[in-house]
């Protein structure tokens, strides 16, 4: 299952934090900065899997495989322009499929905001949560279809754009690089 979803920008400032276990705010922040430290050190050519940050590193000493299945063992990330999207998950998830999931998430945002940029997410973090809520409930993926996710969010009410005077609308439409 998925243990946490994080979004932060190139400076490590969080834009979305969602933990599927109840965690102390201070611990959340520490985890966030540990992961940011890891991810910021990687060149763009590197692969999209991170080693476990110290907070999540398994305790020394062997434990059986079945126990490891419950513990988070996979940190997957994707980097889009100014934002990092991070998924922390257990071994029951497929690493490559998680990358696709992030892609769906971002595409859904793009669909809702029309050429989404970081500012949209800053001002509409409630919508960001709503999109995530349509895709993942309680750490289990409930929807991977782009159309259905967008539909689900739209059913909850109008999606606000960011305030108009907050700068120009995003740059030119481009093609999503998918894997």
């Amino acid at each position, binding site marked *: 299952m998925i243990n946490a979803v994080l979004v932060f920008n190139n400076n490590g400032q969080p834009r979305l*934090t969602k933990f599927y276990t109840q965690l102390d705010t201070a611990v959340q*922040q520490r985890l966030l900065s540990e992961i940011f430290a890891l991810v910021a050190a990687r060149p763009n050519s590197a692969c999209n899997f991170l080693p476990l940050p110290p907070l999540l590193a398994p305790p020394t000493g062997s434990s059986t495989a079945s126990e490891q299945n419950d513990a988070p063992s996979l940190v997957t990330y994707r980097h889009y322009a100014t934002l990092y999207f991070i998924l922390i998950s257990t071994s029951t998830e497929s690493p490559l499929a998680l990358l696709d999931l992030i892609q769906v998430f971002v595409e859904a945002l793009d669909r809702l905001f029309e050429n989404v940029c970081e500012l949209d997410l800053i*001002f509409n973090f409630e919508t960001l949560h709503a999109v995530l809520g349509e895709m993942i409930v309680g750490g289990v993926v409930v929807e991977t279809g782009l159309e259905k996710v967008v539909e689900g969010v739209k059913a909850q009410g109008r999606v606000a754009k960011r305030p108009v005077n907050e700068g120009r609308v995003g740059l030119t439409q481009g093609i999503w690089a998918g894997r």
Partner: protein
Amino acid sequence: MFEKDIYQLIRGLRSHKGNEREYIQDSLRECRREIKSQDMDHKATALMKLVYLEMFGHDMSWASFNVLEVMSSPKYIQKRVGYLAAVQSFRPDTEVLMLAENLLKKDLNSPDKVTIGLPLGAIPHVINASMANSLLTDLIPRLSHSLPAIRKKTIVTLYRLALVYPETLRPAWPKIKDRLLDENEDPSVTAAIVNVVCELGWRRPQDFLSLAPRLFELLTAGGNNWMAIKIIKLFSTLTPLEPRLVKKLLPPLTSIIKTTPAMSLLYECINGIIQGGIMEAAEGTTDGDEVARLCLSKLRAMLVVEGDPNLRYVALLAFAKITSSHAELVSQHQDVILECIDDADISIRTRALDLVVDMINANNLQTVVERLLKQLRTAGKAPEPTDPTTEDRGTHDGIVPRADEDDEEMQASIRPKEQKPNTAPPLPDDYRTSVIERILEMCSRATYAHMSDFEWYIGVLVDLVKQCPSSPATGNFGSHHTTASKDRPPNVADAVGAELLNVAVRVKAVRPDAAAAAQNLLSSDRRPDFFPSAGSGGQAVLASAAFIAGEYASLLPDAEAVLTSLLQSSASTQQLQASVLASYLQALPKLFAVLTTRDPHAPWTSTRRTTTMLLIARIVHFLEPLTLHPDLDVQERAVEYLDLMRLAAEAAASQQTDDDEESGGGGSSYAAEPPLLLTQAIPSLFSGMELNPVAHAALRKVPQPEGLDLAAPINGSLQMLLRQADDYDTDTDEANDEVYKFYYDKPSSSVAAGYQRPAAELLEPPTSASKSKAASASYQDAETEPLDREAAERKRAERRERYKDDPYYIDSERASGTSTPTPMHNILRSSSNGEELDVDAIPVMELQLDSKDIPAAPRAPSANDKKKKRPRRHFEIAGDETLEGGDDMPSVSSSASLSSKATAGARGTKKPSLLEVDSSGLSALSLSDDAAARSGATGRFDVERRQAEEEEMARAIREVERLRLEMQRAQERIQPRGALAEEGVVVTRKKVRKKKKVDTLSEEPAAAAADDDDGEEGGTAVKKKRRKKRKEGGEDSVASEKPAADERDSEVPVKPKRKKKRQVTFDDDDTVE
């Protein structure tokens, strides 16, 4: 007052560059005020702002009650904010959770479909065991909601319910299963169910075997890649239980591998084939062979493909899973895997490294190690350990939302953009460390089974020293916390040193090489080569090097140079760790002994005397300052050897040389002998039996001598002695001595009294006995001393008798018989404490003897023997020594069971990983059909039964209440005010008043009327009673279910007790309805 909305807050943050902290504190204060406002809009806005700030680490747990208030708002927009706040801020210890339960139930049953989604999303975050049970009854009906979106969320929520309270899955599972089997179900709901089943599957795969046909159908139908991946993952846990599945699965999996355009699905197919054991199961069949070939070729292609490091990464993961079962298949792809060791990406490198360690054999060991070494050499070391706290803003204080640098960047559309340089960063220290550890692991595996060239290995080890990452915080010199140096975390340089030592000890043939390597490492003029940076990462290796140099001093190319280097290190002692220094100290006298006895037959000339004296003087010069070293170990050794050296100097100075005798005109014709202290006594301290590796478990196998009672006090009067020692301390004025004063509180310290004692005593190892002896000698304790000596003498005689025929036992007399008696030895032997020395020596000596008799190696005895005989390798590797015995296996297994017990214990108390959601509760819950049927036969499900009971109870209570009201009305109508039927009047009136209070509006115009009527109607109490009874009987026959207790109550209507009861039932009624 309402200050600003969320947009304004964010804008404010963005515009307050530099003083964000202040701005946030202001905003938080504002929120605290606003959230108390009566206006729900203000409340919700304040909450929204708090949620935003919470993301940056500003605690909002204080607002949990306000969260609840907003959650219960009738407006969806506000409710949504409340739920979001609950999800983000509720923690296990949030107390208002109990109050939220009813709200969640209410919203789950909301007619508005959007509202239902809110609790469904929030419950997984806040659920606990006590809530789970009561929410279950509201969740299950949602499984058949008309909207697929609600159905799928319900399924997942039920799964999270089961994680905290497994029993809840029992009533829910059949319904979920029906949904899965329903072919007309919405595909996205089916996919969600498959996701949940996959999560459940690995815990109890046997329960899901019955679903295999349906899952197979879904897999072959295709369409949803995510679901297909999950099904394959689920199947890989099922195949071990149902071998027939393998045959069934092979064709579709093969076709997916061949046809799918989705790389993730392709990969998971291969992964599923590996993990499900399909490869082994299908081995030998044509299909199986084909699939194995197909998988490996695809994996290989993934490794080779350009431009996608992710594929390389996951392919290595898959390879790592195959190695355990198909090592030979994997090693066919060695070439590409080895390429990955040099990948620019450290994640990939680490994976490759893990894999390579398992692939190593005698043929490729050197290539791989050379490759890794080259990598270490060429990649620059990480910049001097920078404190991450200074680098990353807010590593420890949390992240402060900063005013954003430039809006331009933020407006950049979020799409992949090459931004950062693609150059590989310098190797981080932990990677460096792990490479070194892996090299050591590969080389030393199975007692050097793959090693064919030890000279090369020593070269590698010396090279590795240079590559050790610099470790911060060395040299706790000056700090009086002496234990710190021993407690410091093991350094990788220690491991390298240990390997060097291990090779030197085990492989006789390369000892000269090892000694030469040690000399190089120690040599002070080559220091900059090996330990270039200020960080002393590799320095820990010096301890081992010094030991080798000391122990094999005779093999050193230039012992004198080593001695000089060691002595020169005094200039840099400030940099050396105490443990290294202690090792230096131990090596010094060994080197000295070798240097002075290099030519045993050389005459004792004045030149030789001068050289010796000079050597001693240099050593003394080195040792003297160290007697005040803060580390006790260093200090003790320094003090001991300092006195030894002074003794040697005395002996050398007083010994007549050749020249002296000639000039003195003595008639002796033979050449003068060098002093025995130098030629015999000192070397005999360090030579003797050769050191051999000892198995870890060997000590445990040493038989316990009969009659050895470890619990018995060694010296019965120890307490008294200590007390006397204390008294003595406080009484004497010797404490004026500065050194003494320094150690005032440590009377047992070896320096305290050590200076003026006879050398013989200093030569004794500092056993507890010698200490007590020292204490008694210096403190003039005549009382206990003879007693002790007598007892020791007696014990010694006894022991000698007992062990007379024991080959394992080395008697001090017998052992020392091998060396010529010298004055020194006489002193040693005549000392009453010589005996105690033997006690300490027993295990070591035993093992030594044993090794001659029994060539048993504990780890892999047969392999070891084979190795020794193998002709192509001319290296002889000494195996670990251990005691022989029939209990070899049992003791091994007992140690294994011990360790397994230890891990079991550790597991029991193991702290779960930070984000872990524990699902272990599910493993005990059986969901299989027959289990369900069984529990169905014995009765209804627990939850359902309880629910039915509750309903029945509510019905009964309503009924009773209705009857009573009726009765009351009748009674009031009948009862005349004038009929002062004793107690009846008072009670009736009270009753009426009470009633008015409880429900004023609903029914009591009638009651009021009755009240008025009371006086006019002239009925009697008797009449009233009779009437009531009649009525009661009639009702009874109708409502047969009414509980007896209530019946009794209504029969005796006029009792204060009943009134109380009535009120209670009213309350109940309210909540039920």
